[in-house]
């Protein structure tokens, strides 16, 4: 049994306040892979401190949409603003052109991302994973980064695993390191793409517990997940995606209780 996560954000000096009330504003986002249209005009606004859970059938574009928010994917139409700044593109003579690599990297600093398959740096220890970006990207002093890193790891229940390599950790432990790694950058927004779907059932709880605590502490989060219990308890809004579009959205009680669309009903009956 792990100690329940508590006051996680205190180790990075408290909640990094988003500059804007609208942390994410996606407007009519369109994306295709070659001829395949994957996002067909997705619009979503996420406010400060909100937790939005995205659900939907496989291939509906959930992962792609979340990846567009930190410009891991280019978009072919629409705009995405994070904290009031357009992501990935700038306006030049009325047209959108992709921003420079350096600017994109700068924008990503304040957006934390947690991947389905953890993607921890294999050649670095848990602590090494957590302190890498603060030192390299933010120019933090090594001592300071180590202090913050150890504190973060302790608060996600991994104080004793700081010197372990990813291959020596269980999936649940790896994912908690990945969350600590993202938090070390003091992000104002956290993106989670099915953070528990690669985990064995007995490890899902420990990861959800950390995410629940983050939500309690006021972190703005977008979570792709089919963990209904988590969504019901933590989400401010649930968004149902289908075929590259947002079919409907609403508070969990409403969306799970009285879904407006047949397809939502059909989808929910499959996963509940």
């Amino acid at each position, binding site marked *: 049994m792990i100690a329940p996560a508590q006051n996680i954000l205190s180790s990075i000096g408290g909640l990094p306040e988003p500059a804007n009330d609208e942390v994410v504003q996606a407007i009519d986002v369109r994306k295709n892979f070659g001829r395949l249209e994957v996002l067909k005009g997705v619009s979503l606004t996420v406010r400060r401190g909100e937790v939005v859970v995205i659900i939907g059938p496989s291939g509906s574009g959930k992962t792609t949409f979340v990846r567009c928010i*930190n410009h*891991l994917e280019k978009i072919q139409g629409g705009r995405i603003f994070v904290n009031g700044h357009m992501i990935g593109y700038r306006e030049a003579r009325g047209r959108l052109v992709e921003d420079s*690599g*350096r600017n994109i*990297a*700068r*924008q*990503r*600093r304040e*957006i*934390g*991302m947690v*991947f389905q*398959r953890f*993607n*921890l*740096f*294999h*050649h670095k220890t848990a602590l090494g994973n957590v302190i*890498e*970006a603060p030192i*390299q*990207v933010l120019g933090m002093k090594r001592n300071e980064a180590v202090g913050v890193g150890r504190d973060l790891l302790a608060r996600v229940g991994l104080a004793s695993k700081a010197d372990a*390599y*990813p*291959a*020596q*950790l*269980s*999936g649940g*432990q*790896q994912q908690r390191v*990945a969350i600590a*790694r*993202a938090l070390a*950058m003091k992000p104002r927004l956290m993106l989670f793409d099915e953070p528990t779907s690669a985990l*064995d059932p007995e490890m899902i709880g420990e990861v959800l517990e950390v995410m629940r605590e983050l939500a309690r502490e006021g972190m703005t989060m977008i979570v792709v997940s089919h963990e209904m219990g988590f969504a019901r308890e933590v989400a401010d809004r649930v968004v149902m995606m289908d075929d590259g579009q947002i079919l409907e959205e609403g508070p969990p009680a409403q969306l799970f209780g009285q879904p407006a669309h047949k397809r939502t009903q059909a989808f929910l009956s499959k996963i509940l």
Partner: protein
Amino acid sequence: MSFDWPFFWHYLFRPSGAYLHGLMLTVVLSVVAQSLGTILGLFAALGRMSRLTPLRLVVRAYIWIMRGTPLLVQIVFIYTGLAAGGIFRFQDISLGFMTIPGNVQAGLLALSLNEAAYMAEIIRAGIASVDHGQTEAAKSLGMTYGQLMRRIVLPQAARFVIPPLGNEFNAMLKNTTLVSVIGVPELLLTTETLTSATFRVFELYSVVALYYLTLTTIWGWVQARIEAKFGQSTAQAEVAPGFGERFFGRAIFGAARSKA
């Protein structure tokens, strides 16, 4: 058959100053050409994977030419060919305490440029072996291309690059013999000079073969050390009973055992 044993032992164990100089030149040429070739190869590998199409095409053409023509032809082309064509003539460079002759510069350049093409492919394959998720995680943390290459991708690619790099250096030690054609007095040319004075071809080529064998053997030993040391941190981590091994290991090996 007459094998002059005393002559053989003499040249094997009491090499002349010129011979030792040749040996030194062989080692220095190999080390410098391999180092320059590796650095150039790294840039060529990155260029080969660039998003800029013209850059990619230029690097591909370069690799195609360097791997598709004999090294011997490249050496003669760069030293003699360029000079004959009135394009470029290598001049001796004086560094004060020593002089680097033009043919040594040309030989070094040819060996390095040729090696770069092979290293480019090796490094490219090494980079491609690193899981793309590593790059994405680094990007999502705000790392620039340079940072993620230097800190995340290349250190992991090194695992795949180091064994073939060792083999390349073994080949390099022997390929340096080719610069003898432009008059660089490395080990082979020194031997040839000696044979034309003594006509003891059999003995002297036995000696030079043993010298190369010694060099490559020493290198083989060093290489094994490097690989053992290098693989340590990652190998240790992978061997440790982690999540993957405990679950997949039991499932796979358990199934295999029950079948047997």
